């Protein structure tokens, strides 16, 4: 039972001052084992804050990040799943599911976490699942101003993943979940 937090596109301090208070009250240290961040934090203070939630932090570089040394893409294995992170501004057209599927095949991961569109999506195709946690602060994106703050918490338990989607709609936190199973086990090479 591994809890993985996926979030990104905070754009602090340029487009938003901070995470919504309701999100911050829920995100307490000690519960989450890994954090995956799609990028565009943008400053070091946000990185430090995420580090306090969980020491195992994986970040990919967004185009506005002030830290230049984050990688463009990153892969990691958690339990039976291989996860990949990429900010998504590199994949053109932005948010196009087929192109993202191509990236996923390239990285050879079961779950690809990308951002940049600031809209939550969860899409499944033959190669795996693409999850976009949206923007954790609700910052405006290059495409639209109409953004709800959202993030994603994945509960990885064996071959099954339960994805909890946390969205702030009209000042209230709404939680939904998505369930999916992987059909084959990861072979370690």
């Amino acid at each position: 039972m591994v809890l993985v937090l996926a979030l990104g596109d905070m754009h602090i301090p340029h487009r938003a001052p901070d995470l919504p208070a309701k999100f911050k009250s829920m995100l307490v240290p000690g519960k989450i084992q890994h954090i995956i961040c799609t990028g565009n934090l943008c400053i070091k203070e946000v990185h430090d804050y995420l580090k306090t939630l969980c020491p195992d932090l994986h970040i990919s570089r967004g185009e506005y990040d002030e830290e230049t040394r984050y990688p463009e893409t990153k892969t990691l294995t958690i339990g039976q799943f291989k996860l990949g992170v990429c900010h998504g501004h590199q994949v053109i057209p932005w948010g196009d599911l087929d192109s993202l599927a191509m990236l996923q095949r390239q990285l050879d991961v079961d779950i690809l976490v990308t951002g940049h569109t600031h809209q939550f999506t969860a899409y499944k195709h033959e190669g795996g699942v693409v999850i976009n946690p949206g923007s954790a602060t609700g910052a405006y994106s290059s495409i639209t101003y109409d953004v709800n703050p959202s993030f994603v918490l994945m509960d990885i338990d064996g071959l099954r993943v339960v994805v909890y989607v946390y969205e702030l709609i009209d000042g209230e936190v709404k939680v939904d979940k998505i369930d999916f199973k992987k059909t084959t086990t990861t072979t370690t090479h």
Partner: protein
Amino acid sequence: MSKKVPDWLNSSIWVSAPSQRDRISSLFPSSTPTTTSSDSRPPPLTEPPVPVPPPSVASREESPLSSPTGATPQINERKDRHGEGDQPADRTLSEEDVSRQSQLLAEVGLSVCNALSKQIVDMREVRRLTAQGVPDCAGIRSTVWKLLLGYLPPDRSLWSSELIKKRSQYNNFKKELLINPSEVVRRLDDSASPGSDHSHSESSGMLLRSDITCGEHPLSLGKSSIWNRFFQDTEVIEQIDRDVKRTHPDMHFFSGDTPEARSSQDALKTILILFAKLNPGIRYIQGMNEILAPLFYVFKNDPDAENVDFAEADAFFCFVEILSGFRDNFCQQLDNSVGGIRSTISKLSELLKEHDEELWRHLEITTKVNPQFYAFRWITLLLTQEFNFADSLQIWDFLLSDAEGPQETLLRVCCAMLILIRRRLLAGDFTSNLRLLQNYPSTSISHLLYVADKLRQKTSG
């Protein structure tokens, strides 16, 4: 002007009671000369800190004259020896003593075995015999403790059914309480929608969002949320883990990298975690691991293989039983109440005053050694930390043998501990007394228990 040796150095306090010395010197004329300097006493024989597990020798009963196993190498003085003086720290192992003692012990062992083999065990007889000390062989201690703690009924024919019942109950506890929230949520899901097919492995497309069951999500802060309670439990579990790793670091059974030590630690952890979950009132308090350790050790070293397999379950129930008498000591809110730890300590104080007013006055009034400083650990941990492991097993025999419960007997043993070192206490000031009491000097356990027993007779007289 030449410095004279101060009078107090020459006083008789530094000499141990003549009666013991005479006896020993009569057997070994060359040993331990009586001198008046304070360092004259030879260092006490230290028992090996790792008690050797009793060999599974079923023939123990047939050879009553064989010497005791390494687990009881201490010198047990004869019961007829008096002396409320200083610690007989100058113990020498005389062969006569050993064989006499082993004979005594083996006789007790035989009688206990006889008592146990009856169809209906005579509990009074077993208690009486246990008070003298149970020999460390053929799993007698394990069975005796289970009987004394009420885990096994006196009627032998019911033993197997009781054991099966209790052991399966323990397994159920484990299954119900040790699952993680993901499992729970999954079960809730399955029961809510039994027909739904979760594997949409063929279809591509946007994944459907569905509602969460009962408002349960991992970051939930609700009091009744499974997840929240799970995370609160993890704090307790972490503390239990830390304490278990620190239990008896000198014993291979409990500590180290061997698979045996690891399995012991896992078992201890499971028992304590289950106890904490089943008792949300007291959860886990530091020190419970020390009370559990002797129980688990004794049950695990039972020569009967079936008992060894279920040692964890047996230890759990016996642990609960012991703790039920001492619960109030562990609950902080009850500290000042009638049954709480403060009142127990003041009872000890009263007992000491009754039996040895001079010592009481000296300790509490003259040197102001508040009994809380030393008795707290004695009482809450049932003396496991004051003596080495083998000795504490023997003390526990004595404590558990009391029909009215270990609380009263414990106080008497503590009182006896104080009385036995009265000379040193009377000569000392606050610092030295406190240091002495917090690192209680090793002593002959049977002598200690004998004195404790005499205290009972005095009060009832």
